Every structure is written in C-alpha cells, then in structure tokens.
C-alpha cells in the first residue's frame, strides 16, 4: 500500500485517502502554441519506469493538492512537496540522487 505524507497537514496518508492526479510539472500550452505543443501538453506523458513526479490530492484529508517524487518500478517514495512550484525542490532532487546514483532529471 502506498503511503504519502501530505506536506500541508503533515498526515501520513495511505492511498485510499488520496486521489492521484497524473504527471506533475507539465508546461501548460494554449492559444498561440502549435497543435503539436498542445497535443504534447494534453496527452504525451513521460510514463517512466523509475523516478516519476506526480500530482496527488489529499482528498479525504485537508483537500489540498501536493506533488510526490516516487519510483514507479519499486513504489519507493522519495518525498512530497507543495504543488506551488514549477519544478522539484533541491532537497527532493538530493533525496532521489542519494538513492538513484546517475539519475538525470531530464526536461
């Protein structure tokens, strides 16, 4: 069972308390962008086998959105952080690199 700590209320929530929200840090595209860029934003996903940044909502708790860094191959959780950021914070990146040497953040 997946357990994530909500960075807002500090509760260690198991997955039935949480609502998954898909890949995090997508660049929003809209009017003025090409069809291809909009398609990428809407549909194309990294879907990596390994480190994944994703959105979650503490649905049956404080109700707030947050982000999690997680390994999709082992279900290991590297950390959670508030959703008000455009990229993973340094302490999360450090936690990932400590446990996945050689891992590259990618775009």
């Amino acid at each position, binding site marked *: *069972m*997946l357990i994530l700590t909500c960075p807002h209320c500090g509760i260690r929530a198991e*997955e*039935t308390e949480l*609502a*998954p929200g*898909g*890949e995090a840090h997508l660049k929003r595209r809209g009017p003025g962008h090409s*069809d*291809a860029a909009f*398609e*990428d934003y*809407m*549909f*194309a*996903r*990294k*879907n*990596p*086998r390994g480190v*994944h940044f*994703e959105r979650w909502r503490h649905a049956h708790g404080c109700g707030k959105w947050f982000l999690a860094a997680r390994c*999709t*191959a*082992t*279900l290991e959780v590297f950390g959670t952080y508030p959703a008000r950021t455009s990229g993973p914070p340094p302490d999360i990146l450090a936690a990932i690199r400590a446990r996945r040497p050689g891992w590259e953040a990618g775009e």
Partner: protein
Amino acid sequence: MTRYSVFAVAREALRWHSGWQRAWHSPAPKKAYDVVIVGAGGHGLATACYLGKNHGIRNVAVIEKGWLGGGNTGRNTTIIRSNYLQDPSAAIYEKARSLYETLSQDLNYNVMFSPRGLLMLAQTHHEVRGYRRTVHANALQGVETRWIEPARVRELVPIMNIAGPRYPVLGALHQPRGGTARHDAVAWGYARACSAMGMDIIQQCEVTGVRIAGGQVQGIDTTKGAIDCRKLALVVAGHSSVLAEMAGFRLPIESMALQALVSEPVKPCLDVVVMANTVHGYLSQSDKGEMVIGGGTDGFNNYTQRGSWQHVEETVRALIETFPMLSRLKMLRQWGGIVDMTGDRSPILSKTPVGGIFVNCGWGTGGFKAIPGSGWAMAELVARGEPGPLAAEFGLDRFREGRFIDESVAAGVAH
C-alpha cells in the same frame, strides 16, 4: 512440425509419448531480419503469425524480455466480447472475436474458445439507456447482441441476487457468442504457428536500445547482441513508453496496475461471463471450477505487476452484493499486470515519428479479447507501411486531431 490430431495422440500413446516435439524452436538471434517484433505476448505473436500467413513476410523475429505470454497475456481474465459502442472498436473487436471462433482449427492448437455468452449488467437507469443504445449500435455494426430483461438474467445466472438493495439488476446486454478462451494457449498456439513458418522466437532477450539513422530505424540492441531490421514493431503493452523513449518519441500512455484474483475451485455454478460495471467487478468460472474475478486499475503510474489490498476488497465487496454465495469462498491467488492506458481508452495501431517503427499498444484493460484482430490489423500496417481499414482510425494522429474513439464513456469501466 507434427500436426496435432487424434491420430497423433493415438500414435504417441502406443510409444509412451516419446515422439512429441517442442511446440516452438528457441534459436539464437540472427544478424538481421526483415521485421523485428518486440513483445512475445498474444498481440506480438499474432502480428508475426499474420505477417507470414497474410503477407508472406517470414524473415521475422519476435523478441521477448521475459518468457512467452508471461505479461498481460497470462494475467488477464480471458474474457472475449465485441459489444462496443463506437464503429472502429466494434469492427476490430468483432474481427478478433470471429477469428477466435475458428482459431483452434486455424492454428491446429486448442485455444479452448468457449462462446458461453456474456452479460453486462445494467444496475442503474443510466446503464439501461447506455446498453440499449449499444444494442442498437451493434445491430448496425453487424455484432450480435441483445437487451434482456431481469427475468431472463435470473434464468441465465441463478446464483445472482437480482433484487439487491443498492444495485438491483435492471436488465443486461447479452452477447451470446462472447465468452472465454485459454489465454496461455492463445500465445502458445500463435508461437507454434510462427515457429512452423520459420520465424525466430527469442525469449529472455531484453531490448536495450533502438538504432536510428536519418529518421529511419536500423535495428535494435539487445541483451543477446545487436539485431538489424528494416521494420520494427513495438507490441509491449505496459512498457510501450519505455521503448518509445528509446526510439526518441513519447506516447499518450500511462502504465497502471490492473489486478485479478481467483477463488478455490467449486462445482459448476456459472456458465456465462458476467460483467458488473457499476460495482466494478467481472466474474466467470474457469473449467477447473475457480471463480475468476477481475477488478479495477490503480489510479497511479506503476510498473510493479503487484496488486493492492484495497482494490481486492473493493472488488470482492461489490461482487458479494450481487453474488452472495461468493462470500463463502476462499480466494486462492491474486496478481497484477501493467496495462497501458490511453486517454480515450482505445488502442493505438500506428506509424510513429520514426520511419519503419510501428506501435501496437494502448489496449489498456481489454487487450486479450482483441489479440487475433489486433495481430491481423497490425500485420497489415507493418507489411504495407500504411494502416488498413481495421487500423485506420487507431492512429496516433487522432490525439492531435481530436478524433477520439471514446470508449471510456461507452464501456463505462471494465473493458
């Protein structure tokens, strides 16, 4: 290759079964092939088989990371149906279902296709309207389905609690020629047919890279060495995004765990397949007597082929309301598979941004039923370089153009 028949069984019985051969060869990979197919599950093997049978392309290798049919082909609940709402879906799933009818004869391998009939229960008024609409759509598509009333459901499935307090059964969509087949045998039968045509099936050979030059595929690197190819078909379900990443493009796919479980074997009590989409569970009884139960997907990206407790509980809780006798059964096994979900819950059979690379993926939670049709359409796509009528609507470009084949609405959930 010896043909399987009653005479072969008799002959072998007389010589202590000493003459049976392996069903397929396991050669070392050659330097080059016309077509390399990655993924020796049902879809990959069916693609190879119809490349040989329908298009005369036999210099083909099927590469498999694990063992043959060990992914979702061996992890599904073996349900076969084609009662889809949208025309392109009904066409390819009905093609598959009709190929299943004679697959044992065509492959000379018993896939135990059992057209025992399939019910999709309507347990809300919304579902009643939805399924009545599907019946009309299926009539136009030439797919035989009918709407049946609760009294008929009770006749077909005596163990069902029709008048449950929360979700009474208000009727059902009945596909009399839907059913089940032996999932492993489908993979084994196709593998044997491919091997007999001189194709190479290479197991325990993981792809580590895709070589591309000038926008055209040149070959792949594997744990058993480099293999050149003119055309490359990626038919790897849950790992499609990983292979696409190697080839330098992204897919509109997210991989998630879907799980199923079986009970201890009991005497025959259910001779149709029952799907209950409102409560989200589906049920059939295997020939061994086990109740085969399918559940829902996790909502998050996952490659671990593991299930989760709360989904087992959710599924079983829901089914017990409709099938009270299940509450007395012990569950024997539970397992997970990694399904490749697209936004519109329809598959992708498509050319890709790289010349010579084709993808067949996105079957999500419902790939087993489609294996023969998927292989048929994919073989046509790979052989001609352009999709035929069955695959035409399932291209990657549908996401850019907004031409979705929206089965997430049509099928509800279980799919």
